């Protein structure tokens, strides 16, 4: 027990987690909203069109942050799942389980916007480009994780089994990425990856980074909301939950 810092230990009590998650979620949500507004202004209005791709390059300001998020969420999810499995912290497991749908959503967003960007750039919605292919495989990994989670009825067993799967995924993702990149350079040497710009102008970098930050805050806000539901469902027979809902109308 001494390995776990005291504040974390206190936080891991479901009741405290529930209250804490609500507050942090609201704050992160507001910050995300403000950042999205600023990012949209810079991305859509106050940045020059790309000298080659014109205004279609503005899709980058959601495509690239979404692609970053899809990887980031998987790593956070695996980390939280591992913490939940090793130290039996239920709040961490709830956090990991709540991350999967959000991560899948960002992956789907990266795929869809990538396709919409691909049409004007390549003349077709789908090209077996390394990044799109990797995103597709990542989506499969997320869906597999969610399928396993919903197939196991017992909550604790499900949390630990999905943790193993997430860790196996973490070991495999770099290998899959490397393989896909290698395969891509072999078969489509002519297609220049659209992200491989040697240098990106500062006026385009600003909205990109703002949107990336906004998505991170959105993710934390959203995932804490979802984790709250998990905690509530798990603890529905406890007295603190019953006190909480006392005043509620049927």
């Amino acid at each position, binding site marked *: 027990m001494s390995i776990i810092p005291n504040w974390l230990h206190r936080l891991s009590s479901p009741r405290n987690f529930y209250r804490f998650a609500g507050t942090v979620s609201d704050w992160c949500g507001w910050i995300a909203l403000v950042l999205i507004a600023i990012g949209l202004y810079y991305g859509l209005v106050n940045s020059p069109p790309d000298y080659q791709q014109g205004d279609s390059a503005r899709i980058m300001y959601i495509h690239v942050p979404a692609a970053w998020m899809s990887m980031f969420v998987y790593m956070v999810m695996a980390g939280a799942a591992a913490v939940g499995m090793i130290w039996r912290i239920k709040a961490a497991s709830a956090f990991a389980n709540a991350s999967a749908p959000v991560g899948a959503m960002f992956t789907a967003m990266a795929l869809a916007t990538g396709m919409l960007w691909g049409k004007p750039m390549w003349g077709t919605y789908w090209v077996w480009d390394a990044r799109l292919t990797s995103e597709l495989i990542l989506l*499969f990994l997320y*869906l597999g994780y969610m*399928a*396993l989670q919903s197939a196991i009825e017992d909550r604790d*067993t499900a949390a630990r089994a999905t943790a193993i*799967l997430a860790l*196996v995924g973490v070991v495999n993702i770099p290998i*899959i990425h490397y*393989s896909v990149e290698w395969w891509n350079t*072999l078969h489509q040497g002519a297609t220049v990856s659209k992200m491989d710009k040697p240098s990106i102008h500062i006026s385009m970098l600003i909205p990109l980074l703002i949107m990336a930050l906004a998505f991170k805050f959105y993710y934390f806000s959203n995932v804490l909301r979802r984790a709250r539901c998990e905690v509530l469902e798990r603890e529905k027979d406890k007295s603190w939950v019953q006190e909480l809902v006392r005043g509620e109308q049927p």
Partner: protein
Amino acid sequence: MSGANLGTAFVSLLRRDLMLAYRHRAQMLNPLLFFVIVVSLFPLGLDPEPELLHAIAPGVIWVAALLAAMLSLDNMFRSDFDDGSLEQLLITPHPLPLLVLAKIVAHWLVSGLPLLLLAPLLGMLLNLGSENLLPLMATLALGTPVLSLIGSIGVALTVGLRGGGVLLSLLILPLFIPVLIFAANAVGNAGAGMDITGQLAFLGSLLALAFALAPLATAAALRISLN
């Protein structure tokens, strides 16, 4: 625990699994039959033009091998789970990863090895030349053990679940992609007279990695699934 003791446990479990497989040999042959049928469907669905077949053969044979592996993997722990011997295995004093490895080796001997022996025949059906056949067998020799190793993790996670077979393929097939990419590419390149030691080295290192990690993950997954 003495080393000899561990070895005995490993060998006796391996022998037991092989014996069981031999008794149910008709059932063991089904994935192989599936492998042959799937491969022979492609010329019918496409065009039996020799050049086309030659071009798609490495990919087709490898995809069929992946699917056949999925089918046979489903049985890896199922019957042991049903008759309770899997639980017995968990409470033996021997380290579980080692026992799991014995089961994986047995699975590969029963499903991977026959695939390896059958593949040249299918390669000929798809117009692969002799320069492709040896690389095909080399990739299968390095790749199919990886399928058994990684697959065992998925089987351990889904053992005892209803509809586990479909779920298993959802979990495991994406993880097989690196094997597919490098193996199919090596076979294709060998036909073009290119050097394929890089691809084979990659497959070999995948095998080493899977060999080191998969039994541990499978053992952990089994303990979770069975409590």
